[in-house]
């Protein structure tokens, strides 16, 4: 694609922002991308990607329930995902890594969501697609406010528990021996993750949640060794991909979440490829002997 000169981009953006739904999409998309980049780093570090996926699908059941009773989908998905997060938090830290149990619950959640959509009076195919693949262009004013409030709460709590959570994620045994509340922190993270996921599915939908929640952070982790800078990069990637996706989708009649997913996936492939090249050059036998 040819780069547009600066003035043309500026006038293009002016054109885009004349539409309120595009303004809203940029606002919500930016908040969500920031939250997803930060929480995503901890997801990658804690290897909780499957839990992120689970909350996403539990959020689907909640969102579909909202459609059935005629409220904003975000309310239902937040409630369901946070309930799921609290349940796993109460079951304990190790529960977040029980693939079989989580898998069973999320299969049931998807089935339940499908039932709710079938029972609802509206166009269930359109509702299903919006929930599954994102509906950032159709976001309502009330959703924006709720997204902002939830995102701010997630960010504030994350800043407060950042260091203990990072330490527990990196070295749980030592943190436990040091008397840190590892179970509490793990449970708290499950709730933070559930909240972050349920706001993020507005952009990416239930099925493409990894596009913002995992891939930007996975790229950043590969490139940067210092957690704060890695988080900053994950946020930057998520935000830029969201903006670029919205920008392109304004001109090209294909879905926003498709563009966002493609952009981050292309970046991920590129980084994997580059790191493979540099690793093979720096390869040394000693690197493999240790555990």
């Amino acid at each position, binding site marked *: 694609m040819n780069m547009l000169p600066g003035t043309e981009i500026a006038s293009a953006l002016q054109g885009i922002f004349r539409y309120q739904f595009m303004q809203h999409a940029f606002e919500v998309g930016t908040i969500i991308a920031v939250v997803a980049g930060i929480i995503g780093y901890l997801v*990658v*570090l804690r*290897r909780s990607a499957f839990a992120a996926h689970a909350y996403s699908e539990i959020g689907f059941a909640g969102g579909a329930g909202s459609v059935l009773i005629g409220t904003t989908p975000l309310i239902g998905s937040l409630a369901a995902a946070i309930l799921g997060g609290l349940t796993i938090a109460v079951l304990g830290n190790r529960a977040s890594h029980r693939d079989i149990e989580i898998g069973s619950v999320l299969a049931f959640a998807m089935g339940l969501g499908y039932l709710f959509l079938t029972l609802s009076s509206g166009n269930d195919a359109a509702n299903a697609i919006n929930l599954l693949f994102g509906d950032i262009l159709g976001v309502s004013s009330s959703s924006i406010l709720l997204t902002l409030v939830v995102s701010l709460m997630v960010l504030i709590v994350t*800043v*407060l*528990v*950042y*260091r*203990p959570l*990072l*330490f*527990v994620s*990196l*070295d749980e*045994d*030592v*943190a*436990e*021996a*040091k*008397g*840190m509340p590892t179970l509490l922190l793990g449970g708290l993270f499950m709730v933070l993750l559930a909240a972050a996921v349920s706001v993020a599915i507005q952009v990416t939908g239930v099925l493409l949640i990894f596009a913002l929640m995992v891939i930007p952070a996975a790229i950043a*982790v*590969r490139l*940067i*060794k*210092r*957690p704060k800078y890695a988080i900053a990069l994950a946020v930057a990637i998520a935000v830029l991909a969201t903006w670029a996706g919205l920008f392109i989708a304004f001109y090209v009649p294909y879905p926003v979440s498709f563009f966002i997913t493609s952009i981050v996936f292309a970046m991920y492939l590129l980084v994997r490829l580059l790191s493979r090249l540099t690793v093979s050059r720096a390869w040394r036998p*000693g*690197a493999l*002997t*240790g*555990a």
Partner: protein
Amino acid sequence: MPSEIVMARDLTVGYKGRQVWRSANFSVNRGEFVAVIGPNGAGKTTMFRMLLGLQQPLSGTLRVFGAQPRRGNPKIGYVPQRHVIDNETNIECIELVRLAYSGHRWGLSLSAREEKRAAMDALEAVGAAELADKSLASLSGGELQRVFLAEALVSDPEMLLLDEPLSNLDIRRAKELVELIGSVVRSRNVATLLVAHDINPLIQFLDKVIYIANGKVATGTPERVLTSKNLTALYGTHVEVLHDSLGHILIHSVHGGPEEPPEEDEHAARH
């Protein structure tokens, strides 16, 4: 300051319905280098969990720094048996050491310079200053163990608990690490308990051995504990202790072949 850091009297430990070892008496004094030796599943990690206050004794008395063991005692530095360090753990070493120093604090860091200084000092103390900005995922086994040692030393403990730091190292790296630990023990006067399968790389540095086998615990200087008579009594089967010309020891079960039992997961004893 009392020199006795750990005191166990008639101590029995285990889990509901199962004793791991019983009626043990041992002590550890300030600045002593102690090896905890025994076959897999004998209860060596369990001993550490007791000292750390993560598990309670079934009966008997255990005192650590003159008090009941309690979780989060800052006087204890701990290196657990297995850290998960893989390719996704692309985090620089100094960050791990720094978190061991300030990871319990909530909110944003207000004293970054002081934390960095403490972490660098700990890395320098184990000769790993040049690893500070390397990724944990890129380190060799020996380098990792040095960083973990720095992580344990950063809070300036009076006792170190090192769970099998030698298990993934070749003979040369194991020897280097033991020499490093020995010099840390002497220069900082920090009591150190080190869990190992093989006593040979350690023997010239040790003040004391705690030998756990067959549900029993024997303790004393290596020369006193590692005799055919004592180990035969401990295992309840005829064991011979053989010495080679270099002072190495081979512990040999006369009836059942070499003593080392088949591999089983030490963690089995924790659940």
